[in-house]
């Protein structure tokens, strides 16, 4: 097959150019060493940029995790409920006479149940003892009775303190009651003191019967100045 003249020219140019020496063109200022000096830092910089990018992503992920965990562990002050009322009654005389160590079985703690669960609506009445505690729970109740989370009763102003709940781990070993009592945040009141306060307070009984005076059937209403005043005490026992 005969080649076209144009293809012949292309082939001739191709063959001629293949004879070119492996040097820059004559009169050229091309310097491979200079170009390599520019190229080498670019080759070194590329992986570093990639590493820096990965480091930034890891740092951002850690920061986000820390922030989320901080919000999870520390709720806002508005979410804290101040429902804890603690009364600790201790029979010191009996305890000190029979046991050389303090008797914790007599402690009555009326407080919010402190546990790992959040937003529990009920408040339980607990008697704390010296039993071993589990790792996950901070207070091990011996007896607990569920009561409504209501404001404390009015008749116990001397012992009632409204404090914010602070989830504080209970100390396991308490060798000295006096020493640990100083560190307590709740007022410790002996049961006898409460009993003495109740006895000192005037006893008020709830009205159980009403007596009607007169028949109640009058043709004419009695004048106001002659009407006897009937006064009934509307009191109730405060602890009922």
């Amino acid at each position, binding site marked *: 097959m005969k080649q076209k003249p144009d293809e012949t020219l292309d082939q001739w140019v191709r063959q001629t150019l293949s004879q070119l020496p492996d040097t820059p063109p004559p009169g050229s200022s091309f310097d491979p060493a200079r170009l390599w000096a520019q*190229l080498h830092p670019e080759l070194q910089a590329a992986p570093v940029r990639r590493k820096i990018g990965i480091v930034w992503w890891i740092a951002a992920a850690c920061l986000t995790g820390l922030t989320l965990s901080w919000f999870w562990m520390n709720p806002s002050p508005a979410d804290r409920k101040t429902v804890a009322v603690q009364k600790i009654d201790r029979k010191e005389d009996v305890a000190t006479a029979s046991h050389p160590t303090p008797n914790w079985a007599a402690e009555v703690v009326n407080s919010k149940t402190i546990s790992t669960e959040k937003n529990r609506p009920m408040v339980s009445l607990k008697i704390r003892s010296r039993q071993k505690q589990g790792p996950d729970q901070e207070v091990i109740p011996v007896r607990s009775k569920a009561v409504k989370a209501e404001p404390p009763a009015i008749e116990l102003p001397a012992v009632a303190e409204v404090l914010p709940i602070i989830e504080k781990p209970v100390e396991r070993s308490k060798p000295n009651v006096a020493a640990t009592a100083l560190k307590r945040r709740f007022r410790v009141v002996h049961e006898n003191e409460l009993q003495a306060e109740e006895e000192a307070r005037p006893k008020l009984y709830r009205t159980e019967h009403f007596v009607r005076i007169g028949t109640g059937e009058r043709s004419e209403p009695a004048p106001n100045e002659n009407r006897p005043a009937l006064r009934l005490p509307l009191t109730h026992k405060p602890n009922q």
Partner: protein
Amino acid sequence: MSQQLVEQCQRGNSFAQKRLFDQYANRLFRVSLRYVRHEPEAEEVLMNGFLKAFRAISGFAYRDDNGLEAWLRRIVINEALQHLRANRHLSLFQADDETEAQPDPEPLPDTGLDAERIYALIRELPPGYRTVFNLYAIEGYTHREIAEQLRISENTSKSQLSKARALLQTWLAQNGYEAETRRNA
């Protein structure tokens, strides 16, 4: 030899990269200068081409030296075409009449070598002619491939090639190459 160089380059060995660069830099600079006329631009094209080659060499399967050179050459050519497109050098495809009316090319360096004279004449072609002639006559691309690469029609590619050949033959005749070319044919 080149296979070991490629393997070392694939591991990121800087010395191997330098040796590979030294081995092909001059040859590929000539390729770049055939597409991009000015030397600073050709150096920029060459540097970007080597950067891409060293970053993509981990996926290159070495067969022989010719395959390695063709791979590097293709990267540099693509980089040169990208440079031409970015700098709108290829917009001269439309100015056919003006380029044909151009005066004689610059005086060639008197090197005494036919290859250098032909190489210098090709560099003197207008950008559109030069690009199509390089791609078709020297690199072996088809008109369809050229049209895709330069985002022109196939007819434009054929027209540019025809005019490039005509202009080159005219210049060759002026430099005393006409008879020799026909005699070789």
